């Protein structure tokens, strides 16, 4: 056993991190929130070039997967940089289409998703960024449909996320939803949440080291340190659950990872806000991009109680 990322996986993370660090993602997120998709689309293409959307797609369908560990590696970085758009949903759409035997239209869509030509979203019932996506899938009546579009884009607390309602009708792509596909969405969401939490922690550690009150950096106060230590511990113990789940793709493992990573990210968000004080409460401060994301991911693709129910249904942990 070697339960550590391989050199290739580390390098994959490093290259995504370098690319996203250079891309000024906070301003891309802000434009995306304002309805200007140009920067977000450009990021999307570069992520597709890096292979991110092909990871859940088997080679036989034009992808490079299925590689759940690499999906987790990639989505931690996407979360760390707060990349906007229906990232999880595009991976889920690919997993759905790859998991069933659909009409030729499905195969064509799949290769468009894997290559990054098409951005997809999935309505269950709301579809994230359905007004921006090229493909709107809907999970309905036990099957997978392609809706003719989406309407009623409503802004969310995370201003970079707009939830839409898929239009009725459309084409039935798969009569049965491949159940394993939803685990990909949970896994990717968990990874993204872990990344969000890691950045919230990093930014807050930097802030409390700089911010001086009572004549000293507030990071020297034990009350401040202990909250950050707890955040670090929560994130650090969510990480092995995430990668363990990616290796087994066992529903209970994935659910445990989702619940733990989102819990850790949300706890870290609360700590980050509290320790930044009033500046952290402003929309102007970039911290807000991650603060609101942590909240949104908590209920996306498996609310805490649903994940815990899956953990309990499966029985005791592995030996």
């Amino acid at each position, binding site marked *: *056993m*070697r*339960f*550590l*990322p*391989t050199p290739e*996986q580390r390098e994959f993370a490093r290259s995504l991190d370098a690319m996203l660090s250079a891309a000024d993602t906070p301003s891309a997120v802000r434009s995306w929130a304002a309805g200007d998709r140009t920067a977000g689309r450009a990021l999307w293409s570069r992520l597709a070039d890096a292979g991110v959307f092909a990871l859940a797609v088997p080679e036989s369908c034009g992808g490079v997967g299925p590689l759940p*560990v690499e999906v987790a590696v990639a989505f931690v970085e996407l979360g760390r940089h707060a990349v906007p758009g229906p990232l999880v949903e595009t991976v889920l759409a690919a997993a759905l289409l790859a998991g069933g035997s659909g009409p030729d239209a499905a195969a064509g869509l799949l290769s468009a998703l894997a290559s990054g030509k098409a951005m997809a979203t999935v309505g269950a019932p709301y579809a994230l960024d359905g007004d921006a996506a090229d493909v709107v899938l809907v999970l309905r009546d036990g099957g997978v449909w392609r809706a003719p579009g989406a309407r009623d884009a409503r802004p969310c607390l995370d201003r970079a996320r707009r939830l839409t309602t898929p239009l009725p009708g459309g084409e039935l792509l798969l009569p049965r939803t491949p159940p394993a596909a939803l685990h990909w969405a949970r896994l990717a969401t968990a990874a993204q949440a872990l990344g969000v939490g890691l950045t919230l*922690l990093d930014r807050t*550690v930097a802030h*409390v*080291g700089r911010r001086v009150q009572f004549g*000293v*950096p507030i*990071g*020297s*106060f*034990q009350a*401040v*340190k*202990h909250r*950050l*230590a*707890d955040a*670090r*511990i929560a994130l*650090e*113990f*969510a*990480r*092995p*659950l995430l*990668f*363990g789940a990616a*290796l*087994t793709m066992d529903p209970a*493992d994935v659910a*445990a990872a989702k*619940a*733990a990573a989102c819990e850790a990210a949300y706890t870290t968000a609360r700590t980050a806000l509290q320790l930044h004080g009033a500046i952290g409460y402003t929309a102007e401060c970039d911290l807000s991009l991650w603060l609101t994301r942590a909240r949104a991911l908590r209920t996306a693709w498996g609310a*805490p*109680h649903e*994940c*815990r*129910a899956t*953990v*309990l249904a499966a*029985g*005791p*942990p*592995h*030996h």
Partner: protein
Amino acid sequence: MDLDHSPAEEAFRAEARAWLADHVPARPLPSLETGEGFAAHRAWEAELAADRWSVVSWPVEYGGRGADVMRWLVFEEEYWAAGAPGRVSQNGIGLLAPTLFEHGTPEQRARVLPPMATGEVVWAQAWSEPEAGSDLAALRSRAVRADGGWLLSGLKTWSSRAAFADRAFGLFRGDPGAPRPHQGLVYVMFGLRDPGVTVRPIGRLDGRPAFAELFLDEVFVPDEDVIGEPGEGWRVALSTAGSERGLTLRSPGRYLAAARRLHTLWRTLGSPEHVRDRVADALSGARAYQLSAYAQASRLMEGATVGAEASMNKVFWSELDLALHETALDLLGEEGQFADGPWSEGYVFALAGPIYAGANEVQRDIVAERLLGLPRGRR
């Protein structure tokens, strides 16, 4: 990245499982914090040792099997899954032995380790003092140079197992003139029935004498029972502090087994909604600690060392253990109040977890300062 045990590890697991199935007592032993229970647990150590299961990670020459850390984790999973008794020799095996492997002489190892492995000699710790708990370097008990050794005087307290144990190890101030509190300390081993030693058992919350005060009045310790250089005691002790806080003190197998028991109890009682989330979190927490241990073992096997990360383990397992037991007691309701209930002693034991081996507040300071790089400040 993988979670696959090698065929050799699986064979080792099967061998351990088979042995445990044949030997683990059908009924739990009496509490090891009683005279009768202590004796029963000591006998169990001998039974383990007879087939080389008491110290699997030690070299063969001292009674072990030379198991690497991954196999040790496997053994621990099997051990606790089998419902085997608590380890009365934990202090010696988990703390003194690693110190001897790192700083002891061959003579000390040959003399001390084999009887530790069989339970013939059970060890207690002698660290804390009334004025030196989390701030251990404030300790005042003295070691005064004498002909061929040292004379120990002072008061040690919260010495786990000391009410019934045979010998103890700890730190004493050998050079009262040393410029800094961490300097001039001597790491020694001494007998709890040596002349000059008075052991006063202390009842823990449930009244059982789980620890003791040690009054020391010119207790003679020969030079051969000093570990490392006199004056270097702090460094010697610190080199294995990570062991105490980290994996070797509390292996994941223990919590996996407890979480499994909790899950079974919850289902048996009709899966009540009010503790549902907490049962799920106990399962996930135990799995997280197991997987984290696999990651740490993977790093150790590549030559890395355990540093401040051990402090994260300590906070995590101590809080997990307490949460597990609190959930079980809440689930049992009024039935959970009985002193002889199946979760009661474990609960009392778990209550001490956030305090011993470095209070969790100290561990959080370490995480914040050494892992996050925050400035040192007033405690």
